[in-house]
């Protein structure tokens, strides 16, 4: 199950995968480009499902991998939100 996957963060800290965190991040990216809330929720659910399908049979991934995978899926649903989501940590 995806919840047993370990995520290695940039700082080196390890934590368990959290669907809620990913969901909240996608929602925030969609809302930041003024996507209606209902559409943002649908998109976030779809991205979480796609990402969790990718995580099956994986024991450990980095947070960068998760972000990359989620961004690849998001670009299909909402390219503008995907642009913001991909760049957020590297804004300056």
């Amino acid at each position, binding site marked *: 199950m995806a919840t047993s996957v370990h995520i290695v963060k940039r700082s080196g800290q390890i934590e368990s995968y959290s669907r809620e965190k990913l969901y909240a991040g996608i*929602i*925030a*990216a969609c*809302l*930041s*480009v*003024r996507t209606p*809330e209902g559409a943002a929720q649908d998109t976030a659910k779809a991205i979480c499902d796609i990402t969790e399908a990718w995580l099956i049979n994986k024991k450990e991934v980095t947070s960068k991998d998760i972000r990359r995978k989620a961004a690849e899926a998001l670009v299909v649903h909402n390219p*503008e*939100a995907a*642009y*913001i989501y991909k*760049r*957020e*940590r*590297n*804004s*300056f």
Partner: protein
Amino acid sequence: MHTLTDPVTAASALALLLACALLHASFQLSASVMTLLSGHALGKKRSHARLLKLCGGYVLGNITSVGLLLLSATYIISALIVNTSALLWAGLALLGVVTGLVVLSSYYRNSTSSRLWIPLSAADYLYERSKRTKRSFEAFTLGLATGITELPFLAAPLLLTAMILRGNPDSTQLIAAIFYVLLACSPLLLLLALLGGGKKVSALEQWRQNNRLFLQIISGVGIIVISIYGYVTFSVDGGAQ
């Protein structure tokens, strides 16, 4: 000799002041932090009014920071320097040329991204603060911090402007300083107007990304040119002002 009020040097001084302010405006950090702040505010479902309050607070903080830096530089230069010399202008020109070359070579961390060359700890601090900012005052202090963080790149235009302001009557200095600050912070004011009008953050970010190389060249070459111009124009007669 008062550079801004002296008919002989007024045009050159004003041109240099204008160029310094426009170059200051071409730097990216304050605009980046503002788009990040607005993106986070929208992502957390803050109201439009709250978004504008936060961004307004940030812009005011940045304006305050730039104003204080410029007036402090002017005061210190006025207090320490009785007569300017060609050597002083040469030193400032050298600072400007070095800054320009650094901007041309290293303003972005790598050639494919728009990640700026600022200390990683400062970048992390600004990122975390912009994410956690909820109140206008916090946004104001974030604006202050951003203005100071980019100082290594802005020192040359600020010092050149301070040299122009030095020696002028107080009222002239104040008016010129206000002009500089408003022009230098004009991108933020424009961003505030665009966000208020409902423009998307992604569009603004994409514009910055698409034009980053152009802005980098303009900034780097511009600083070199104005530094040499300042040296040639104001020190060529021995610099006694």
